[in-house]
């Protein structure tokens, strides 16, 4: 074995010191360049050391045609602040804003009401400005917040341990696949056809570099997910089966048979959730036997914000898998005086210690989004989350019933939470969504947009309904859809 050179205290100290940014421009008192870390002398010395005559020499591998020679043409010169504001307002007015029109978009990002108190709390300076505040001596507030966040995620998912968050749902999904390959020492992942295609895309992209085999499929357009077909694809080389719940078409089914089938083959069940509010009403993935549960946390506290930053959630059901988890983990401990305190724990899995053998190259977390999630969850409480979920489902049922009465429209799902799939006769759903937008209704996400060029899917439209949807919104969508579909 190799004994680390800096296993002692000096190693840790050096680690923390490495995170302290070097303040720019203080060397040589070079005030002219005070926001840049390098002086001309530094630059000359560095170029001399590597044997380059100029910085341009470092770019010779970029073909000349691809290089910018001089300023960008047609780029206007700077303007006054007022003129820029006026210009930006004009651009912003081209947007159709989620809160200003009937809004039924979902497919992995949901518009929920975020209480104003969430923003007020997360903008406290202690939370907002601190970067990687993980030294327990000075960061008990942040560490306690992460600990509470982990507890909330673990309970929501029906798991025992959750980490301090990942970048977003899709990267958390890949991390779950990677973890399953470590746990099982196998390299094949079976993806459900009803996994969000963007999540499947991230998994395929990452697998290109790890060499893992990804067996994916297209969603079957039918009232219930094809779990038997999924189970049939599990073999003895399978590391994990990845299932979304509720799935990309909004369908909900008992995943216990998939868990059983996976376990019988020595594979893990990974359950992906893109709408955490659903778990206020539906059985948790952990209760159905999922080994790893991951998902997107955006629905609670974060808001749509043009697609990011979002919040990846990651939890495991079996404590024996904890050491294979990616990311930061916050733990509870006692200080020298026996008082309750919080620390980062099991860090030996992580990149700053295990280097290339770390469980993941993620060495950070979505701290502020995790805080927003945690504050929103805390404000709701368990009873509040259940009420919120019930209200989402009530309105979604109203919408499904109303939309099913539109001629040429039928609801595919036999079960759903707050999102369901409509099958539209005649024109492709994508065209109808555009038509609806022209009528100032954001009517849903067409499967044709998510899966380009697949004829079997192009008449399906995903419709999401949340507590922010009004009965007037639903009526308006039904009326406009009736016109658009003609």
């Amino acid at each position, binding site marked *: 074995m190799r004994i*680390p050179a800096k296993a002692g205290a000096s190693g840790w100290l050096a680690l923390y010191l490495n995170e302290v940014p070097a303040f720019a421009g203080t060397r040589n008192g070079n005030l002219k360049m005070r926001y840049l870390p390098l002086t001309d002398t530094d630059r000359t010395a560095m170029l001399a050391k590597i044997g380059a005559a100029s910085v341009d020499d470092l770019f010779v591998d970029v073909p000349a045609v691809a290089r910018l020679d001089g300023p960008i043409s047609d780029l206007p010169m700077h303007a006054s602040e007022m003129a820029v504001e006026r210009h930006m307002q004009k651009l912003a007015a081209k947007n159709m804003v989620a809160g200003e029109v009937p809004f039924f978009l979902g497919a992995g990002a949901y518009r929920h009401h975020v209480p104003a108190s969430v923003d007020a709390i997360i903008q406290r300076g202690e939370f907002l400005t601190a970067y990687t505040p993980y030294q327990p001596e000075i960061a008990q507030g942040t560490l306690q917040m992460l600990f509470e966040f982990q507890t909330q995620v673990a309970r929501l998912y029906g798991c025992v341990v959750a980490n301090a968050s990942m970048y977003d749902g899709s990267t958390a999904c890949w991390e779950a696949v990677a973890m399953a390959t470590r746990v099982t020492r196998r390299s094949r992942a079976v993806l459900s056809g009803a996994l969000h295609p963007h999540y499947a895309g991230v998994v395929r992209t990452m697998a290109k570099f790890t060499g893992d085999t990804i067996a994916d499929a297209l969603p079957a357009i039918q009232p219930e997910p094809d779990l038997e077909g999924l189970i049939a694809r599990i073999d003895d080389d399978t590391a994990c089966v990845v299932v979304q719940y509720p799935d990309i078409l909004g369908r909900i089914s008992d995943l216990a048979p998939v868990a059983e089938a996976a376990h019988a083959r020595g594979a893990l069940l990974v359950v992906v959730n893109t709408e955490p509010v659903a778990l206020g009403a539906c059985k948790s993935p952990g209760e159905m036997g999922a080994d790893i549960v991951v998902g997107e946390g955006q629905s609670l506290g974060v808001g749509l914000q043009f697609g990011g930053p979002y919040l990846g959630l990651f939890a495991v059901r079996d404590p024996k898998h904890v050491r294979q988890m990616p990311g930061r983990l916050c733990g509870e401990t006692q200080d020298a005086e026996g008082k309750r305190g919080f620390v980062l724990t099991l860090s030996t899995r992580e990149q700053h210690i295990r280097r290339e053998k770390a469980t993941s190259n993620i060495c950070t977390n979505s701290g502020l989004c995790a805080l927003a999630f945690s504050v929103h969850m805390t404000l709701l409480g368990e009873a509040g989350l259940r009420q919120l979920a019930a209200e989402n489902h009530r309105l979604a049922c109203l919408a499904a019933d109303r939309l099913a009465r539109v001629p040429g429209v039928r609801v595919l799902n036999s079960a759903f939470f707050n999102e369901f799939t409509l099958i539209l006769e005649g024109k492709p759903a994508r065209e109808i969504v555009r038509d609806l937008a022209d009528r100032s209704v954001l009517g849903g996400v067409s499967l044709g947009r998510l899966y380009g060029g697949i004829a079997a899917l192009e008449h399906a439209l995903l419709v999401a309904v949340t507590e922010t949807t009004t009965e007037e919104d639903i009526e308006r969508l039904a009326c406009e859809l009736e016109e658009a579909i003609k």
Partner: protein
Amino acid sequence: MTRYFTDEHEWIDVEDGIATVGITEYAQGQLGDIVFVELPETGALIEQGKDAAVVESVKAASDVYAPITGEITEVNPALEDDPALVNSAPEDDGWFFKMTIADEGELDGLMDEDGYQAFIEAL
């Protein structure tokens, strides 16, 4: 029974064609309190010098290399619940795994007890 040592601080006992492998008293002292040991799978074929196990202390995680080439025949089940055995009895109850010996010749390149003592004194 013959005991050999590597310059990566593993010890190997050879008996009836099977090698038992662990880490040395010196190594456990350098690592400090050991909190977790990840062991190889029984049946795994591992080449000399390649990663066979991971030992985690409160200070660091370190790889344990296979001192010789062979197939893992048994791992120490006691380490799962009580990794501190590696601290209390590193060269005895705190053994890591047993393996076959693919090439007896590989043993010739290893140190004996006196050789290893001289090696660590020179560190």
